[in-house]
């Protein structure tokens, strides 16, 4: 069975500091990996994806993520956090054979000024 783990319910970081939101996955084969962000009372917004190629993927709003096959991880990163980055972040995986996204439980990111 496919699964996604986001081990931290909440991440707190000071504005201007680097941030990391962790994600590990369990799926057979080579997955497609995604990060989405959810602001209050708004739908999920796509941030970035890994399909193949370079392990470091760059996405929207200055976010990036690093795919690590040996550790089955896809951590979300940003060099300098903004207060406006505060939101709920979801990691998701799409198995090699299948079309549905399997989501993690989400991580609340709080950036304090």
């Amino acid at each position, binding site marked *: 069975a496919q699964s996604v783990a986001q081990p931290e319910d909440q991440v707190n970081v000071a504005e201007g500091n680097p941030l990391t939101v962790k994600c590990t996955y369990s799926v057979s084969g080579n997955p*497609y990996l*995604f990060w989405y962000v959810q602001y209050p009372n708004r*739908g*999920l917004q*796509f941030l970035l994806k890994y399909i193949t190629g370079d392990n470091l993927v760059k996405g929207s709003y200055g976010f990036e993520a690093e795919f690590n096959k040996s550790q089955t991880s896809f951590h979300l990163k940003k060099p300098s956090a903004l207060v406006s980055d505060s939101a709920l972040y979801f990691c998701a995986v799409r198995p090699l054979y299948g*079309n*549905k*996204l399997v*989501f993690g439980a*989400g991580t609340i990111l709080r950036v304090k000024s």
Partner: protein
Amino acid sequence: GAGVSQTPSNKVTEKGKYVELRCDPISGHTALYWYRQSLGQGPEFLIYFQGTGAADDSGLPNDRFFAVRPEGSVSTLKIQRTERGDSAVYLCASSPRPRETEAFFGQGTRLTVV
């Protein structure tokens, strides 16, 4: 609008009633998905349409849940004999191609069963 549109945005219904939730995907997107998000959890897959047909309905929790997409565009999620446990945000998403492309989500319908 250019995004995925879901109506209504909020729905309160009594236990045992029937409800319909509507999703209007981005024009030209052939793949359409329904997810359910309970409080404090990530979205859970319900059903996937490719065109008019349900290609994967493995996430529907029981036979009270049904979804259609008769013309390959708008989709309706139907829930019969609603239960309090059905209360959640129901999300719809669409994508131009089902696999490697990202899905675009609507704002969801918050269903409350009282």
